[in-house]
């Protein structure tokens, strides 16, 4: 037996019985979480995830994602036990010009932890620490009128997206 700290920790448990493992300290795949890609990451899988980051980024920000964000997104999906995506390919949906923003809103209303919202959330966290996105999240000067008008328009837009999203979720059987 290797005399490492990890080995000692595994040997001992407060109950006197072997704990065996501590899922908190393990990669999600090892901890038995239901995750995508339990196999070792292939470069194809990683590229697929980077392409997914590109799609989500375009929806959120209307521009290409920086390479660093795409790489971190792929690594995050490899590391985190996110909900598995159903049998649908985001890239294919995107190619068919399916409105993923509307779909996400509809899914979020039923389940805030659905696979699509989780992926968008990951992307938001990753870009928020980048200085280039500072002004996407933060309003650093008073813009009372712009703020009120933007939120008013976005509320109307959300109503439209919610209806459209409901239809899309039924159409692609994602409910």
């Amino acid at each position: 037996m290797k005399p490492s700290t990890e080995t000692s920790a595994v040997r001992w448990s407060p109950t006197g019985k072997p704990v065996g493992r501590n899922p908190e300290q393990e990669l999600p795949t090892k901890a038995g979480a239901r995750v995508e890609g339990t196999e070792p990451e292939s470069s194809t899988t990683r590229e697929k995830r980077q392409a997914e980051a590109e799609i989500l980024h375009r929806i959120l920000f209307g521009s290409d994602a920086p390479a660093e964000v795409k790489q971190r997104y792929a690594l995050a999906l490899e590391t985190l036990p996110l909900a598995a995506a159903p049998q649908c390919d985001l890239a294919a949906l995107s190619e068919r010009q399916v409105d993923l923003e509307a779909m996400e809103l509809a899914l979020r209303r039923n389940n805030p932890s659905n696979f699509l919202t989780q992926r968008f959330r990951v992307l938001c966290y990753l870009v928020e620490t980048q200085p280039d996105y500072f002004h996407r999240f933060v309003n650093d000067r008073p813009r009372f009128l712009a703020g009120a008008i933007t939120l008013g328009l976005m509320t109307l837009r959300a109503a439209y997206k919610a209806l459209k999203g409901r239809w899309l979720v039924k159409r692609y059987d994602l409910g």
Partner: protein
Amino acid sequence: MTSADIIIVGSGAAGTFAAYQLRGKGVLVLDVGLEAPASALDGNFYDLKENPPTAGVDLHAELIGARFESLHNIFNPYLSPKLKAPRMRFITENAAKLSPMRTNNFDAAMSFAVGGLANAWGAGLYRYNEQDLVGFPIAPRDLEPYYDAITDKIGICGADDDLTRFFGSPRGLQPPLKIDANGAKFLHRYERRRQKLNRAGFFAGRPRLAVLTQEHDGRAPYRYDALEFFRPNDPAVYTPVFTLKEMVRRGEIAYQAGLLVERYAEERDGTIVVSARDCAGGETRTFRARRLILAAGALNTAKIVLRSNEDHQTRLPLLDNNVSYLPLVDPLRIGAGLEREFFAAAMLNAVYAASDYPSNIQMTLYGVAGTLRSDFLFDFPLSLRGNLAAAKYLTPAILVAQLFYPDRPAPTNYLRLNPQGELELHYASKTLGAIERRLVKIFRRLGYWSAPSLCRYLTPGNSFHYAGALPMKAAPAARYETDGNGQLAGTGGVYIVDAANFSALPSKNHSFTMMANAMRIAAQMERSLA
């Protein structure tokens, strides 16, 4: 085998202040003692985000984590922002391994860090009054000297305002923290409608916080850098670690980390033998003392006592301040510009004390700008781009009222040690919401939009305010009760000083009382030893 006059188990708020009272009297503190990692964050939260230094700080590692630790909430239940950031994860690190638990409906947080859960506290320190101490065998006058001593030792800021009648003497307070525009507007509106609001049972004012606004005891005042949720051990925001390390440095106490105390036994001559597991090697080590003070946190202290009695049957009471969050929006602040310098935790306090409501309800008002906006971005009901706009323009207009519900022992809420050695926590959900409906109407009078349907009720346990397993009684009748001096019934020298000995849990942060009570019990014990 090591001997000491007094062994204290745990280095949290209670253990540290019991040790402080007994410093220089042969005290040995035993602790797992996980240390906070170093943080490279230096500067203002928003300045760092907008213009990160080109070298020395990896913002992704500091705010999100190299292993994406901060993204916990995406796939797991709610976790307080105080525990979520990568540099704050040490607070609850290894807790599941060191003290496994089973629970039906209780999100218990346990800490084996040096300083304990106080590393994650909001630094709110409030004195208990007569009403708060109903059911306790002690009165406010028993605690007052210790409240005062702690205030002098650590430095507490606050104000003598409408909340003094609930929070107690303002003696020794430093001036309150600078308030941001959002909070200032709230207070201004409150002042204008004070009489009517007071008649409705609503009182507001400044929080009492263990945060320095003036230099104190070699510690610099707070710099308004808003990094509370990301960087441990800001010198201006007190944690018990400061006092513990000071006492160790001065040689006033002995401290041994890396030890998980599991049980104790009393010998015929009154000597107490404490068994602890070495966290690194796994072997058992024993220590002898004349007195044992348990301050391992309410849950862990109860576990040590049950394990020492080999008791897998008895159900001990479990108290918790249930928590709800009520968001408030000031429509006149939509689109307001960012204020970079602020304190990220408690901004204001309020108390609802209506004559037709059975107990006072204390609440803390927070802004939300001190967290990552991605933390709450998806809580807005709009589509993605709408939510981004809301995070940008609505954030300056948002206040969140965090309500603490009082708790008293109930047969449905208990803990026990199962035969596998795990702590089982059972807690029945309560019907909450009546108070929030009343408060929504009051906040509307203050110009804030909200609705009861927007209120979030957290799973019990999320307050970190656990108490009551080994309650103080004037005349302890059972072996798992303590007397007014914290001595566990049926023992010659075992004392409980953490919140396990609370007889009830009022709607008020309990840290200050836990610290003062620990000092009070230690002082009584000191007299008995002499």
